[in-house]
């Protein structure tokens, strides 16, 4: 620098930055209006609704039998949990029995999708943290390689990689034979063996720890008041899991451990989710080994989907989706269509904590915090 040049630092004041709705780190179409001072966030205003499809209005115009596949499109990373919550609500209101084998099979598919969903979360978290993890694409590719095997297995079992449509009111659609059970067991041990490698790339990486430790800490009081659910709640020291608190389907009979942390930061959320992968794999093995014999559908074959009617009344049923408590509040006034159906989406509740977390953090922390909350915008906007 020559002697005649003077460096002047200017104070530019507050700047509003639109992050999204097409920002890759927002896991979909989330828009954040960030008020910045330099690189520090002063205020964050999330704007959602870009993926609103009016599913709740549509529910009031379709027959009960037609609706389960619709909800699989809500949370597209764990489709079966959505239709399972719906089927459970209809079964509760209509007092429809579900054969024991079908209950186990539903849990089986949900747990496989939990592993697949957590692998997507881990891979995209690697992308979010990007440069810190050597480009991030390595972790992403390794996670998606394992996830691809799960999708191939689900395609073999149900004919569909993704929206398996396995849940029916009163049972499930596809049965597990001995050959596929053996395949499932081999696959689960294979993925279990790959986990240390994934952990070495993420949680075992010193830069990963520095980017997530103490970042976006949610206190227990804030977690309860906002009503965050799932791994986000369990990382804040509340060991609440719907599978344990309100067991549905086979979960009352299965061995279930609930990973919990008390720090509440992004690293704690990473640790809880990562341990949940192992827990889900253990559940898959337990279901494959102990699957009871019997029928998988309790009702007569459905000839006219509009003939299914429910008595007047209301019911609330929740399941533990990979993102947390996914509840269906179903109100019937008698008839073949729901009078009102409210989907309580876990991503909606978890995203609501964002304006509480971002002020005072740097822009680089915004993507780490969002990635650790794991929102799915199809679930938020419905």
């Amino acid at each position, binding site marked *: 620098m020559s002697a005649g040049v003077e460096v002047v630092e200017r104070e530019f004041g507050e700047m509003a930055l639109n992050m999204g709705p097409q920002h890759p780190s927002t896991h979909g179409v989330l828009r954040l209006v960030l008020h910045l001072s330099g690189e520090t966030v002063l205020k964050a205003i999330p704007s959602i*609704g870009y993926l609103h499809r009016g599913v*709740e209005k549509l529910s009031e115009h379709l027959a009960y039998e037609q609706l389960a596949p619709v909800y699989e499109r809500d949370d597209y990373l764990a489709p079966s949990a959505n239709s399972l919550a719906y089927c459970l609500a209809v079964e509760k209101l209509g007092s429809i029995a579900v054969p024991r084998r079908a209950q186990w099979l539903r849990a089986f598919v949900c747990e496989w999708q939990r592993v697949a969903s957590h692998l997507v979360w881990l891979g995209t978290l690697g992308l979010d943290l990007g440069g810190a993890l050597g480009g991030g694409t390595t972790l992403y590719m390794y996670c998606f390689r394992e996830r691809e095997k799960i999708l191939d297995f689900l395609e073999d079992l149900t004919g569909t990689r993704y929206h398996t449509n396995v849940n029916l009111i009163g049972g499930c659609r596809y049965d597990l034979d001995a050959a596929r059970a053996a395949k499932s067991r081999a696959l689960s041990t294979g993925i279990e063996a790959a986990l240390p490698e994934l952990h070495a790339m993420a949680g075992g990486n010193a830069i990963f720890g520095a980017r997530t430790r103490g970042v976006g800490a949610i206190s227990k009081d804030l977690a309860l008041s906002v*009503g965050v659910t799932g791994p986000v709640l369990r990382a804040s020291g509340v060991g609440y899991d719907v599978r344990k608190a309100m067991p549905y389907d086979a979960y009352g009979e299965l061995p279930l451990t609930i990973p919990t942390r008390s720090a509440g930061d992004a690293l704690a959320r990473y640790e809880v989710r990562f341990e949940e992968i192992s827990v889900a794999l253990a559940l898959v093995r337990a279901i494959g080994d102990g699957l009871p014999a019997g029928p998988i559908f309790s009702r007569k074959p459905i000839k006219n989907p509009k003939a299914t009617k429910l008595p007047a009344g209301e019911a609330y049923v929740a399941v533990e989706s990979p993102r947390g408590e996914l509840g269906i509040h179903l109100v019937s006034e008698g008839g073949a269509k729901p009078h009102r159906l409210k989907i309580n989406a876990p991503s909606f509740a978890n995203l609501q904590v964002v304006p*509480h977390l971002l002020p005072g953090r740097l822009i680089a922390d915004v993507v780490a915090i969002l990635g650790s909350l794991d929102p799915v915008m199809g679930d938020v906007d*419905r």
Partner: protein
Amino acid sequence: MPAVEVVEALRTRFSASASPLGVAVPAASLLEAARALRDAHGYRFYVLASATERSEAIDLVHAVRNLDTNDTLFVTTPLAKTALEAPSLAFVWSGAEWYEREVFDLFGIRFASHPDLRRILLPDEYQGHPLRKEFPMDTPWGYRPATPKPEAAS
């Protein structure tokens, strides 16, 4: 099942009555009842807000949970269709903020002293409240931008 003694306690103080999934509380005493639920009865976890349209009223629904007793209580508040206003619970459970915005967006219920009562899922200039039963599916009132399209340059 709703905790019977909680419903009984609310009945005398806030003129509440039992409802299928919990308790029905009139709008006038909703805010006080919510504070009592959180502070005296341990319902510290916020679950959801929703609404259900009945023939003559719209039922506003809040669900809260006591994690110690693992009890989820649905607090229903019937609102006459001519007076769709209820007190906001966003200062009791901050989770109510977005859920109440959603109910406002889709049902048109206004929440008194809500910190930020704007539409949340639909665009700000949207007309009507789509989850009302009178809102038809083949609507002529669908999304219309507030400003007309600029005419093509000739």
